[in-house]
């Protein structure tokens, strides 16, 4: 197993660092999958993380100037590592000034992702910084847990309102309730609702627009039923999970969408130019 990459462009380095920082806000631990073309940050939904799952995909060519990897075998040309994204983020933040940053899979006292860079100083001699971020290699037999999630059979797909507005509202709602209902219809309307003994609050978003991929993503190609555009699909979720997702967003995505499977799951999709992030929040009773 070998991995070696180099980032030269300062904008790419910034962007990569921001992506890793966003991931670190979403989860403490996740899996980093390296393939010849892509990097994936994956969190598989387990009871321990409240059933939330995440899939973040980066095209390596958009970030790395040099990228070489050799997977576990020629058939399984992939590397799967368990990482603590915060450690990666912290390391990357210290090398933002570097002319070039190298990432390498190494074996020190344990397997590590080593980040090395030359940093300019006031004198002519540069300073070399090396971070060894410990990682755990994930054996092949467990790889099936970290596959790309399939698009759920959603009832409604809608574009999200400005994330900042959503975050402000969700932050306040969290003071009032532990659970929130997200509902949306094919008329571009979305409501966020909370209800407790003390108070009920509903925020109405209008004219959001619905993505053009049809109102029924029926995987088996069955007859797509025409759905009443006013009909709301809803899911009740743990408000902290939604808040966590919104807190982590540092950059405005070029597209932000939400798929709702009625009373099952909320599927959030953020698309940037070269990164896509999917986040699944299961519905609670």
């Amino acid at each position, binding site marked *: 197993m070998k991995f070696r990459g180099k980032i030269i462009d300062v904008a790419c380095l910034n962007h990569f660092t921001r992506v890793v920082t966003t991931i670190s806000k979403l989860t403490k631990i996740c899996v980093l999958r390296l393939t010849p073309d892509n990097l994936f940050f994956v969190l598989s939904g387990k009871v321990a993380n409240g059933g939330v799952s995440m899939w973040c995909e980066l095209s390596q060519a958009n970030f790395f100037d040099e990228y070489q990897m050799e997977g576990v075998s020629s058939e399984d040309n992939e590397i799967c590592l368990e990482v603590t994204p915060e450690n990666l983020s912290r390391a990357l933040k210290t090398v933002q000034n570097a002319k070039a940053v190298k990432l390498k899979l190494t074996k020190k006292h344990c397997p590590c992702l080593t980040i090395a860079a030359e940093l300019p100083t006031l004198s002519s001699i540069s300073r070399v910084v090396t971070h060894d971020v410990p990682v755990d290699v994930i054996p092949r037999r467990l790889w099936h847990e970290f596959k790309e999630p399939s698009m759920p059979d959603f009832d409604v797909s809608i574009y999200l*309102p400005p994330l900042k*507005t959503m*975050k*402000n*509202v969700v*932050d*306040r*709602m969290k*003071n*009032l309730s532990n659970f929130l209902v997200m509902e949306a219809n094919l008329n571009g309307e979305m409501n966020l609702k909370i209800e407790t*003994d*003390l*108070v*009920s*609050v*509903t*925020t*109405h*978003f*209008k*004219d959001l627009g619905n993505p053009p991929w049809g109102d029924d993503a029926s995987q088996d190609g069955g007859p797509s039923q025409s759905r009443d555009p006013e009909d709301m699909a809803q899911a009740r979720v743990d408000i902290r999970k939604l808040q966590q997702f919104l807190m982590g967003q540092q950059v405005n995505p070029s597209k932000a969408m939400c798929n709702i499977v009625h009373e099952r799951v909320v599927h959030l999709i953020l698309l940037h130019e070269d990164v896509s992030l999917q986040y699944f929040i299961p519905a609670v009773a």
Partner: protein
Amino acid sequence: MPLSTQSQADDEPYVLVASLDNARNLSNILKSITFKDHAIFSATPNGLKVTVEDSKCMQANAFIQADIFQEFTIKEDLVGFQVNLTVLLDCLNIFGGSTVQGVSTALRMCYRGYGYPLTLFLEEGGVVTVCKINTQEPEEPVDFDFCSNNVTNKVILLSESLKEAFSELDMTSEVLQITMSPSQPYFRLSTFGNSGNAHYDYPKDSEMMELFRCTTTQTNRYKMSLLKPSTKALALSCKVSVRTDSRGFLSLQYLVRNDDGQICFVEYYCCPDEEVEEE
């Protein structure tokens, strides 16, 4: 006001409807009296009074006159209810309480009467939030029986000067002692804490003293824990009047200017700490 729900609301039998183009003109002043969960709302044709009490020894009132509101319609002489103030503030600030210039949350507050929730319609940037907050039967606020006839001593100070003193007050002192006198030290705040005794003196001819009308020498102590919340109102205000009556009861009245420069009042009443029998 671009609230599409407005026409529906006109048909409903609301006994009270109050609207503001800028919800901060209500939320800021309410924040300054939020030290307990519950507040008693009393609305009359003159406007809105919000009361918060602590252990029957201290009472804070915020007054927002009818003309501060863009719309203030009341169908009865007195409309009263009690709500959870913390919840109300979270609702008023649902869009994050932005302080960006030109961005404000519009508010329409409606109440149908006894047994109904307080309904808030809030709008910012085309997004509408509707809140329904459960109300309770209003408790009878304590009547501190503080009337101008019994006022023995009164000063009006610029808040600037008191803000400094209050920010430096020794909080390890259980009481705040206020001395008012026609002679030295005129107006003195004292604390008795772990750092020792501290005194803040304001001479009667100080620039900060806008009015000085003291007839007798009085020294009264008030529990620090009861007066501490008043610093929020002080922070918001530009002027404060300090009055004591013959019983040693304290009245603090704060003149507050809202975002649009309009004037509102916040008033604190406090009983003297009974342990001290000083004159």
